[in-house]
């Protein structure tokens, strides 16, 4: 399955999908392709299952990234497909938008076990609650990190008491 076929597959299943490209190489030109798919938050498991069922190999999970979009938090589930063949691999990113008053989504860990660390990280950094996530401990932050403070958010929940070391440098060091 190449990037175009994957895009077709998602479009047939009713998802909005598009491809971005970038050229690499000097003498041999190769195209690096990324497929982006918009997914409703109720359908995240379904979208992952479409990939598992239709791809020749098990989807390679990379990471979940997050960005604060004002009233929403956007999660990107990055996967890669088609390794093992020269120049054939591409990235699939599933984009999910969650409203800030309902930061809840189903965990994909039961079907993609590698996602557990990333879901734990997003949970503590952005404050998204993952239903059915088997392990809800902190991943990177210490266990005494205050509740309700989320470092990757850009609103009132972002950490405030930081930066002091850096501030003293700026003032010429006290």
């Amino acid at each position: 399955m190449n990037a175009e076929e994957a895009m077709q597959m998602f479009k047939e299943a009713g998802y909005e999908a598009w491809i971005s490209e970038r050229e690499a190489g000097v003498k041999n030109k190769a195209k690096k392709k990324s497929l982006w798919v918009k997914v409703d938050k109720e359908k995240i498991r379904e979208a992952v299952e479409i990939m598992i069922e239709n791809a020749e190999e098990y989807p390679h999970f990379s990471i979940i990234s997050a960005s604060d979009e004002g009233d929403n938090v956007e999660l990107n589930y990055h996967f890669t497909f088609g390794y093992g063949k020269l120049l054939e691999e591409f990235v699939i990113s599933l984009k999910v938008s969650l409203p800030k008053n309902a930061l809840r989504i189903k965990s994909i860990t039961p079907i993609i076990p590698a996602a557990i660390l990333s879901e734990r990280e997003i949970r503590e950094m952005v404050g998204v609650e993952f239903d059915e996530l088997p392990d809800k401990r902190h991943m990177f932050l210490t266990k005494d990190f205050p509740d309700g403070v989320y470092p990757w958010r850009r609103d009132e929940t972002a950490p405030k008491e930081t930066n002091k070391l850096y501030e003293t440098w700026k003032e010429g060091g006290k």
Partner: protein
Amino acid sequence: MKYEVPIGPIHPALKEPIMLRFTLEGERIVDVDVIASQNHRGIEWIGMNRNNPVQSIYLAERICGICNFCHPSCLVMAVEEIAGIESPERAEYIRVIQGELERIHSHLLWAGVAAHELGFDSLLHYVWVVREKVMDILELVNGNRVTKAIIMYGGVRRDIKEEHISKIKEMLEYYKQAFSKLAKLFLEDKTIKMRTREIGILPYEEAIKLATVGPTTRASGVKKDVRQDMPYFAYPDFEVKAITPDMLTGETIGDTYDRIVVRLLEVKQSIEIIEQALENMPKGDILAEPKIIKVINQIKKSEGEAVGRYEAPRGEDIHYVKLREGFEYLYAWKVRAPTYINILSWRPMLLDMQIADIPIVAASIDPCISCTNRVIVVKGTEEKILTAEELHKLSVQKTRRLRR
């Protein structure tokens, strides 16, 4: 009877701050829990809240001292894609050479650590003497052994000159000769074989399911290598092939020994890539836009998102970047270093092994936890965490005390 043995947060066998909690039945490991939250420097936060995108290149360099070319490359790739910055051809070749020099030094560093974990310290010293050769070249070409500050949006900051090329060629010859000796020492030694064969096996299915990357996954027979699958920079010119242990030994077991085989073969592969790159390096500029302020402005005007992928010595490195027009910093930045995903493979590797196998098996994925910014002080049953500020204060106090 079951009992628990904690290894870490700081332990002589694992020199970086991570904690492993083992449940044992006699000598046999029946459960492994990884507790990673021993340190977090908030690098992504700094990139999103404090640094401009050019400063973030040097910040990314400090994610890991060993892979100090991989992380900035990954960031640069993602930003270049969003802002539509193209690099000159010569710069793309220099980036490849820099990346491969780094792979050689990183794999040799690991080989030394692996020898040390087995208690074979004379081999550690021999390997690190051999490694000095590539460190000297890095210093000669970049002016620095680590954190080389070489990559920039739209190219590289320093050229590889004519006088460097002869020295690099000399180094390649040296490594070609050293390779056969290293291969003999690591692959034919009876003790190393006993300690690593059939130890810490990661089966093919587990390697795929747990999404492992780099030499860890290739040693289990998964032919996955970003340089082959989705090449970047000038890599499409080289037609890199993913290395699996059966290329040398004829079979793939997925144990610690196979991970040694893969890394050794990759050193050889890197030598070949550098040779080919030096031969075909195009002439011309090395930087598309030398004025940094112009580059910052161009990035500031850009909007979009992209994923940068890079095959670091430890495996695939991924940076997701989102830029927003008029926003001073990176709007969103997510770094996924290879060890992040590879630590999941410790569990299947270590189950049913013995306590004494922990150091070499844990080291076999070449973990890179990076350095700490917090200290936990335990007094009796109470724990107190010192912040960077308090730590800094303590350090200043100590200096003053010593000066008296």
